[in-house]
């Protein structure tokens, strides 16, 4: 029997209320959605995936070095063609021989990733992360963001009882044209509702469980009403649907909504209680039945978050900012950047075998005794202290950061000390996810992986810090 042994959820910090959208546009196409999660300017599907996976893996029963498979799902990979899992692998320090799989192109991609992990041998990591975009005038209104991660293994805490599929051609239901960023649907309301309900009902009905007895049900949730409508046909109770519905607080996070709803239900479920997840994406429907419950790190953030106004929303999401970084001046080449990934993702520093001093990055002569030595490499702790600090306003940053400033405003850059055994690892890094004016020398901060900047079309990721606690 395979199933879930650990899980984590990541939601970005900002929340936009539908009231704000209503005020901005005079109308809001976000039925049953009270507020939605909004990714910050330096976040995307990859950074949210890393954050959710860290929560699932951190302190869990499965050692990350033993993972055999990483199955990712997203409709919004940062590059339309480009690596997703390999970057997760480096950022999470997973073994290089891990099998990889990325499901994309539809909102049920998470079911594909789960299915792949359930079919695999040994420990597997499933990460579903999404931040869909739409036309700000309408299709964007319900769209949120978030990520859910599952560690799948034998002898699980939450067993998967069954998985069922239903596939049919449903043209015109939520699609994105090649080369476009905005998801669309043709708005043939009754037709769309009917084909989605049919797919979900067929898949749930095919499960070899008594769906009526489910205490939790995460049903495809593009708005707050749909899951309850679909549940009627599938014989799921309203109480069960309520336990697995998060779209009202998270928004339609594309492929990630049902997985986050599922983890919300599992975090409340007891011993042998049944939870059903029902996915739908462009004609593919899938239903998965789970038995039991487990604690989910980060699930409390479904009800948290900091409100933002609509103007800030448009900026953070990049709807009103176009930035292309040109070349010139000092430049860090891609091969040089790649050499430093262990430092940028995992904070790998060097200890001097002669004096015990700490050097970061671990190359060249020892920073303490200036001897040329072979460093003993170690991972620095991911929390540290602000030693020095500045706030960089508009125009005060290198041009690589002009787009970030237009989207996110002024940012704080600190010199951070991470205490090691003998001495401290010190490095410069941005403080993100906070009002830069609220940071002080002496504050405790925690590492997070964010997009640093995009140049020549290639997004570059690395460590930033957020206030701890």
């Amino acid at each position: 029997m395979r199933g879930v042994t650990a899980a984590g959820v990541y939601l970005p910090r900002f929340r936009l209320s539908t009231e704000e959208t209503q005020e901005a546009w005079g109308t809001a196409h976000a039925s049953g959605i009270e507020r939605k999660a909004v990714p910050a300017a330096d976040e995307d599907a990859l950074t949210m995936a890393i954050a959710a996976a860290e929560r699932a893996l951190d302190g869990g029963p499965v050692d990350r070095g033993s993972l055999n498979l990483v199955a990712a799902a997203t409709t919004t990979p940062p590059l339309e063609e480009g690596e997703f899992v390999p970057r997760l692998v480096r950022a999470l320090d997973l073994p290089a021989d891990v099998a990889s799989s990325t499901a994309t192109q539809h909102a049920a991609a998470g079911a594909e990733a789960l299915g792949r992990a359930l079919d695999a041998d040994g420990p597997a990591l499933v990460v579903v992360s999404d931040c869909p975009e739409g036309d700000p005038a309408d299709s964007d209104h319900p769209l949120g963001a978030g990520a859910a991660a599952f560690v799948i293994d034998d002898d699980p805490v939450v067993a998967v009882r069954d998985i069922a599929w239903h596939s049919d051609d449903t043209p015109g239901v939520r699609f994105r044209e090649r080369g476009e960023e905005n998801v669309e649907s043709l708005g043939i309301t009754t037709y769309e509702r009917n084909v989605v309900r049919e797919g979900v009902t067929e898949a749930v009905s095919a499960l070899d469980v008594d769906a009526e007895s489910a205490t939790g049900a995460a049903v495809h949730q593009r708005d707050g009403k749909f899951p309850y409508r679909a549940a009627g046909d599938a014989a799921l109770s309203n109480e069960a649907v309520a336990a697995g519905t998060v779209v009202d607080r998270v928004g339609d996070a594309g492929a990630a909504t049902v997985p986050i709803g599922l983890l919300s239900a599992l975090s409340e479920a007891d011993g042998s209680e049944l939870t059903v997840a029902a996915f739908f994406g462009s004609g593919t429907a899938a239903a998965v039945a789970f038995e039991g419950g487990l604690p989910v790190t980060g699930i409390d953030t479904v009800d948290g978050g900091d409100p933002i106004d609509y103007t800030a929303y448009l900026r953070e999401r990049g709807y009103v900012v176009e930035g292309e970084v040109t070349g010139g001046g000092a430049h860090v080449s891609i091969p040089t950047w790649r050499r430093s990934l262990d430092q940028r993702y995992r904070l790998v520093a060097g200890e001097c075998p002669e004096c015990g001093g700490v050097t970061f990055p671990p190359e060249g002569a020892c920073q303490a005794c200036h001897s040329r030595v072979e460093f003993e490499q170690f991972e620095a702790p991911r929390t540290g202290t602000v030693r020095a600090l500045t706030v960089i306003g508009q125009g005060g940053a290198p041009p690589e950061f002009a787009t970030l400033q237009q989207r996110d405003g002024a940012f704080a850059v600190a010199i951070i000390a991470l205490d090691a055994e003998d001495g401290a690892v010190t490095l410069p890094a941005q403080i993100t996810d906070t009002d830069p004016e609220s940071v002080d020398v002496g504050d405790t901060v925690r590492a997070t992986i964010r997009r640093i900047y995009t140049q020549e079309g290639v997004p570059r990721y690395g460590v930033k810090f957020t206030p701890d606690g």
Partner: protein
Amino acid sequence: MRDAYVMGAGQSPFGSFPEETYLTLFDEAFDSALDSVEGDFSPDMIEEAYLGTLGVGGRQLGLSGPAVTEHVGLHGIPTTRVENACAASGYAFRQAVTAVRSGMVDVALAGGYEVMTDASSDHTRWWLGVSGQTEWERTSGTTFAGVYAQMASAHMEQYDTTVEDLSRVAVKNHGNGAQNPKAHLGFECSLDDAVSAPPVADPLNLYHCCPTTDGASAVVVASEDVAKEYDDAPVRVAGTGASSGKVGLFQRESLTSIPASVRAGEDAYEAAGIGPEDLDFAEVHDCFAIAELLAYEDLGFCDRGEAGRLLREGVTDPDGELPTNTSGGLKSKGHPIGATGTGQIVEAFEQLRGEAHVQVDDPRYGLAHNVGGSGGGVTVHILEREEAA
């Protein structure tokens, strides 16, 4: 080792001259330096040149040194372009002094040049901070203002230094620069102006930052025999010091000091056989206000944490015990990166000859302190006016 002397020193006006080139600006500086030499000196006597520039904007990144010497008619002489960021011409001067002291040449030229204001704002932004530690410091989103602001934050935290203390650097240096016709920003400012200026990189505001400047400077360095042929009370290079440090602030042993300044200063004092108490004036590297405070402490003008007090008590004012940046400093006179180091020598030379715009009373020893980047390379030179024979 024989002594080296400064026979002449001059500069172009510092300012925004987008229609000038590094060649035409150096032309002016060179003429000014030649004019300052006592007696009838022929540039044909110059045997070798060391010229500092960062090369902001990219223009002539290769061989700009020879291009300059050929442009001013120093045909065929060996010329070395020196790059150590904002300390480029501090190091060029050090090279010229070494060439003369070693006996290799009797007369050497040191100088520097930079054009910073003729490019689009996008292009310019690429070049600001190119001498910071690129791989980590720049990719954390800072240019120099940000790195010095981090030092300011640490200094304020550790020593209760205030925004007023930082602002007094601007008030003092603008007061001096307003007397200097070759200064870039030759106007006075009040403490209120300086405290309430718009932020650049918190805690540093606009008045805590030097401008980007076009300009050139040139210094003629000669052996004792040559120097005394032209001037019976020449200016001697009494002490030199220079030191390197980690280019990235985060890699250094201190956030509230520039260790290379400390080392360069100690060497220069020892070579000159004097201490900071013997100085009559100083030109220090005030690219940002906090840098002048750090210089006071690193060069022994006061104890650690006391720099704010020095400013409050007016010790470094023109009528104080140790007038500092009488030229206006980088803040008011301007900071054409490659030209700054020898530009400081120009002020020291004029002070020691009694020809400065803000003249110190009968000085004997003056110090020039030039910092590259946020402290990756530093030179300190102590000049002495000898008594007439």
